[in-house]
């Protein structure tokens, strides 16, 4: 049975085909214009004994939100399946807001809130200070605009995806910024 995968690995796209043998435990792998004879044996708990053109290796593979994390030889590779439709991320906001949201990069506690609703902010202006494991991190405004709302309070436990401050973009300034560069 031929299996096809379209994979994204650390920003690179790779097409992989596997001619899977009837035992579902190996076959011929086509990768970067080369063929490999492969065997894989599950050892339980995401642990795999891999044989690839006669060379054996211990690997671990674990599915997480951002892709499958694979360990081989001290390195962890995050492999995304680009062939599958992406699940929409809840709470990610409207178009154009994609990564431009004010959210902590890790589970954290809100230390200080530096702005209030209605305030005008510049791009890069510190908005909120959070801490995780006693390390402080400052979340800055991703673009210039007016603070529409502050959705947290000092001392609150917050997680990635929580939008702590909402900003209505200042279109004139945004285009000016774009024009300069």
């Amino acid at each position, binding site marked *: 049975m031929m*299996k096809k*995968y379209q*994979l994204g*690995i*650390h*920003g690179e796209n*790779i097409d*992989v085909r596997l001619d*899977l043998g009837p*035992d*579902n*435990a*190996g076959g011929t*792998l086509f*990768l970067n214009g080369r063929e490999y004879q*492969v*065997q*894989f*044996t*599950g*050892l*339980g*708990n*995401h642990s*795999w004994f*891999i044989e*690839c*053109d006669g*060379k054996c*290796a*211990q*690997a*671990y*593979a*674990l*599915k997480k939100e951002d892709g*499958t994390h*694979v*360990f*081989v*030889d*001290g*390195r*962890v*590779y*995050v*492999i995304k*399946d680009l062939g599958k439709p992406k699940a929409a991320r809840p709470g990610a906001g409207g178009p154009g807001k994609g990564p431009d949201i004010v959210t902590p*990069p*890790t*589970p*954290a506690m809100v*230390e200080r809130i530096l702005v209030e609703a209605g305030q005008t902010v510049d791009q890069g202006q510190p908005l909120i200070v959070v*801490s*995780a*494991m*006693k*390390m*402080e*991190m400052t979340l800055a405004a991703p673009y210039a605009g007016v603070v529409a709302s502050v959705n947290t309070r000092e001392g609150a436990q917050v997680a990635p995806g929580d939008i702590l401050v909402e900003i209505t973009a200042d279109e004139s300034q945004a285009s000016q910024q774009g024009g300069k560069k």
Partner: protein
Amino acid sequence: MFKKILVANRGEIALRIIRTCQEMDLETVAVYDDADRLSPHVRSADQAVYLESAEPGLSYLDQDIIISAALKNGVDAIHPGYGFLAENADFARACTSAGITFIGPPAQAIEDLGNKTKARTIMENAGVPVIPGMLSGSLEPADIASEAAKMGFPVLIKAVAGGGGKGMRLAADESQIKEMCSSAMGEAQKAFGDGTIYLEKLIDRPRHVEFQILADHHGNIIHAGERECSIQRRYQKIVEETPSPALGSRLRQRMGQAAVTAAKASGYANAGTVEFLLDQDGNFYFLEMNTRLQVEHPITEMTMGIDLIRQQIMIAAGEPLGLQQEDVKPRGHAMECRIYAEDPSHDFLPCPGPLLIHQEPKGPGVRNDCGVCQGGTIPLAYDPLISKLITWGENREAARKRMLRALKEYAVLGPETTISFLLDVLEHAAFIAGNTSTDFIPRHFPSWSPPKDIPPAAIVAYVAEEIQAQLAETTSAGGHKTEISPWHLLGSWKM
């Protein structure tokens, strides 16, 4: 000698201390909070006491609960480990008042050396070279700013109560000083309960070289060699080694002598560490004295053949130091890599969470001081240290090669870790040459991303996991519920 020791700490260091206690036939009492209910240190001790605390992260700082737990359980000594109460003079005094031995230096020495400006004064008076800067602290950013203008930029802002890089900021010029002061004061207040700060002149590209001190209560003081800890991120060490590639025997002797002088001048007893900065011209300056066991103590244990925890316990019990300076000679070379649950491709952001796969490296000359296990969790409230991986070799290159081998064996999935980054640090030409300084990471690794070349074996493992998941899905969709048994997971096999 003591009969029962309470270990007032968590994670790898609690486990480390418990192990030596077991080897000395001492009973142990562990303490834990909600985040650590299932931690290895809890189940390794003879007894474990739950610390009830209002706020996560504060339980191990609660002196009253810890001392009452010690009294209730007939403990005769408390080992504080590092961090938490280890450098808290009030706690050391409270132990003594309760009739319990504090395994560490006298409270007065902790207090004097914990105050960085006081420590600088003591060292200056004893003739130990100190970094040019202020000898008293301030809570007024304006005072600090005018002092900085006098000294000339760049300056380092430091917490008077500081340590471990907490409450430390670099001000490159006048425009940054006020902002950096308030940020340093905020962090210092939170970490130490004291926001007082002072200034030191910035030493250009120094090495961090520290000396291990052992001092008993009978006036004997020796040093147990140096540790080079120049590879740091966020002012925190991530790779340490001994001996330092920068020290010749003459400089080592001079610095060792200065370290012993520093310990004498501060009325020190028990294990401690005198930290120096070593500049490009071979001048060294007292940085601070850590009045506790260091995180990186195992590399000294590996080359010197000494169990530092055992030494600490013997000294605290009043025994005279069984070692003379000439008995302490290093053999070979040792390195330590700190394995943190942090994302090195995103500015070493902490990654708390479950440790789903954790396979430790093994083999000759490898030691892994680890306080978590597979299935456990790296809690949000504490330092994201997974383990300290230590290797010993006949020489520096053998220790480095062994570290590379051990890092490659270390499988961790769940949180991001520093392992892949450390492999690149240890393979860097400047590290191989021993050319390390505290700006090593910003200089050589201003940003880092994992390697793009992927071995075919990783693709195979990905595909294998996908196929297994698919098979499991089709089987359960067909109404046949499959029990996971080794026979299902084995795939094809031959005899």
